[in-house]
């Protein structure tokens, strides 16, 4: 397992370098000059040039790239063009909120998705199943800005239970509506995935054997069937969480949450290249880490999968 993990981490290095290179090139060729944006609508060319020099934009591209790359190795991602703050600090102060959002939304999606999926599969063609499927269809079809509007209308405007925007006074209540909005879609997806996986597994011989042995229903469904249907669910949940860690732009924007998604949007509009590069680097690292973690969880669901050892069943 340790060797497998090390191998995977080493394999991730060229991926991350590739991502850095592509992002660097893209940010360098995109139209829109950061110096002009900082100088404002009108400015004398001399000042624009001075700002360019101060930001280091007048240096050859390869020099800027090697500097950036060296910086990455020493955890120094440079300073934001907009306010001269270290990029690592700018990102790190926004990351906890996005992490809370991503983890809570994924947890919500997994818990509700798996529960609904299992119930739908076990009670196939019942009213519960039909209801679950309709809910899942709604969750997949409804765009997050619409869901956001609806939950705000209900919980914030009509019932006045929960604040609609911002991070509140340090409690957790402010997370409820964004988490529902963000978790709805993956929850719906996981419901469908769990349902179809469970239906397939429930047909298998070993499940019939388990029933025949007289095992209680809970043990058959949760212990034998669900475990085997969980691998695709874990993959999807992992990918969803990684995506959310990159920033749920629409939801952060709608609920005015200062997470990395909004930071990225602000940075792109202001052509704040160091922040954009830092954020993409973070996203690449998160994807690599989450994918690795998901892969490492597979043996929990299926002991036949064993990294770095021999297979138990040939």
């Amino acid at each position, binding site marked *: 397992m340790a060797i497998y993990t090390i191998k995977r981490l080493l394999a991730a290095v060229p991926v991350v370098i590739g991502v850095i290179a592509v992002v660097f090139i893209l940010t360098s060729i995109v139209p829109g000059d950061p110096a002009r944006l900082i100088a404002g609508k009108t400015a*004398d060319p001399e000042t624009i040039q001075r700002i360019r020099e101060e930001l280091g934009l007048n240096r050859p591209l390869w020099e800027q790239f090697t500097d950036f790359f060296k910086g990455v190795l020493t955890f120094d991602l440079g300073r934001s063009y907009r306010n001269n703050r270290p990029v690592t600090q700018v990102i790190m102060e926004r990351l906890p909120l996005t992490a809370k959002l991503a983890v809570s939304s994924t947890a919500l999606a997994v818990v509700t998705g798996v529960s609904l999926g299992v119930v739908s599969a076990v009670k196939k063609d019942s009213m519960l199943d039909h209801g679950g499927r309709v809910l899942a269809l709604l969750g997949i079809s409804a765009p997050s800005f619409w869901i956001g509007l609806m939950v705000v209308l209900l919980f914030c405007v009509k019932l006045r239970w929960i604040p609609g925007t911002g991070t509140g006074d340090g409690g957790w209540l402010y997370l409820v509506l964004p988490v529902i909005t963000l978790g709805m879609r993956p929850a719906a997806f996981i419901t469908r995935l769990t349902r179809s996986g469970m239906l397939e597994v429930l047909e298998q011989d070993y499940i019939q054997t388990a029933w025949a042995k007289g095992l209680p229903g809970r043990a058959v469904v949760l212990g034998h069937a669900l475990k085997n249907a969980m691998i695709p669910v874990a993959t999807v949940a992992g990918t969803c969480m990684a995506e959310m860690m990159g920033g749920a732009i629409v939801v952060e924007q709608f609920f005015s949450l200062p997470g990395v998604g909004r930071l990225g949007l602000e940075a792109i*509009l202001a052509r704040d290249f160091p922040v954009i590069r830092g954020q993409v680097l973070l996203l690449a690292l998160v994807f690599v880490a989450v994918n690795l973690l998901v892969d490492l969880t597979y043996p929990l669901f299926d002991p036949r999968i064993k990294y770095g050892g021999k297979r138990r069943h040939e």
Partner: protein
Amino acid sequence: MIVKKPFLFVVITFVLAGMLAGCAGTPVETPGGQAEGKYGGTFRLAITESPKNLNPVHANDTSSMRVVYQLFDTLVGIDSEGELVPNLAESWDISEDGLVYTFKLKEGVKFHATTEGGMETANGGREVTAENWVWTFNYITDPDTNSARAYFIDMVKGYDDYREGKTDTLAGVTAKDDYILQIELEHNFAPFISVLGYNTFSVLPREDVEKWGKDFGLHPVGTSPFKFSEWTQGDRLVLSRNENYWRSDSSGNSLPYLDGMELKVINDLTMQWTEFNLGNFEAIEVVDDPYYHEALEKYPDSFFRRPMMGTYFYGMNVTAKPFDNKKVRQAINYSIDRQGVIDLLRNGRATPAKGVLPPGMFGYNPDLEGYTYDPVKAKQLLAEAGYPEGISITLQYNTDDIHKRIAEAFQQQMKEAGIELELKHMEGAALFEAMQKGDATFFRLGWVVDYPDPDNFLYVLLNSANFGPLGNFTLYRNPEFDRLTNEARLETDPEERRRMYQEAERIAVEDAPWLFVYHYTTEQLLQPYVKGYTLPSFGEHTAKFYDVWLDK
């Protein structure tokens, strides 16, 4: 040089107390007598965008300016009507030749003594003297400071030498004693006083600027009614009451009335409206079009609106075909129904533009004819210009829903005049670069004045000395227009200046380097219990809150 004595020898002295808005309400007893307003409360304002930089020398966007105006003070102020009024200079005197400005500074003005929730500032709350102003002007114009607005005062004596490193200080700015500041100019510049009202030219405490260096914009210290308290980037910014503020109300009670201000970023305009209705904010930055009529009905006495000193237009690169032909440019101006579009798409929240200068601006000409909606005339002009079959042009505009809707309406209207308008939306940064480089041939732009003078419109945006990033993105050149706008900068007689600017504007309207669309309206929606607020014609982002109070 024409010198007019009445203007030059005027020593302007205003009684500041008289400027304070008289407000009804439940008064409170304080040692100074009966206060006009109630003390206490936090003014919570929803803003759409986080401020970028709170160092006044770098703040050139409205979101940053809004905060800078609460933290810092300039020598002269601009009142809600756009008129110049004393601020930290209680009076000033201009020499006969218009080259020497002598300011009498207000005594007893102190920098913030504490900041960021009680931390002592490096200056310790000391008094502002003329030496501070000398240092501040040197700091602003220092090339290493890289202030994008330093060039606004490039007529100050010794500016070039200082910028080029030939001198260690800016020769034209000197302290005659603690309270007398003198500024000498290389050449006469009539709008000079107006320029000093721009937020870049605020007094700064040297000790704090040197302490924080480039991070001063994150730790601002000024002289105004509110002190910087805390700032969560992208989320909220908190200001607290400056207990040593220099202004007092008409009864001698200390100002401001408010305990503080809290600015919260709410990007979504629907959410701004929702939160306002729930009573979570005293004010919101924007009332979006779908809620406009509801806001008028629900808040008839606290939804303030007035014309703003800004113009919305489409620029034409007059060196590119077919815009190089004056008749084509005129035809385009005849091809749109301004009022119809304003009513239909903007709920009437703008004034159709007949020319460059907005209503309320010095030099505004109410008799200017401008262009009406006349597709037949537009067609005829196109035929005369050699385009009997019509023309096909492309508009570049920055991605935004309102810009899109307006452009689409014009697209339909122009068809009738034989103009095929193609629409190309671009991200703001990309369009901006294209405009500054002269690569955009037909582009949307909005302009809100930096200082209340026609110079900031006509000279900056259309004089041929300002091609490219300096402001003339259309590359328009007319020798007579140039002469008038150059000479008006030197002219000191207000009536003569007005005549020159009106004549220059008439030429620009005739030459039509812009498609004149509309003049902006500024608005502010407040909770009915907010008192003492005045909406400035400069835009809601320039409002000052030193005498605002909450009646609840």
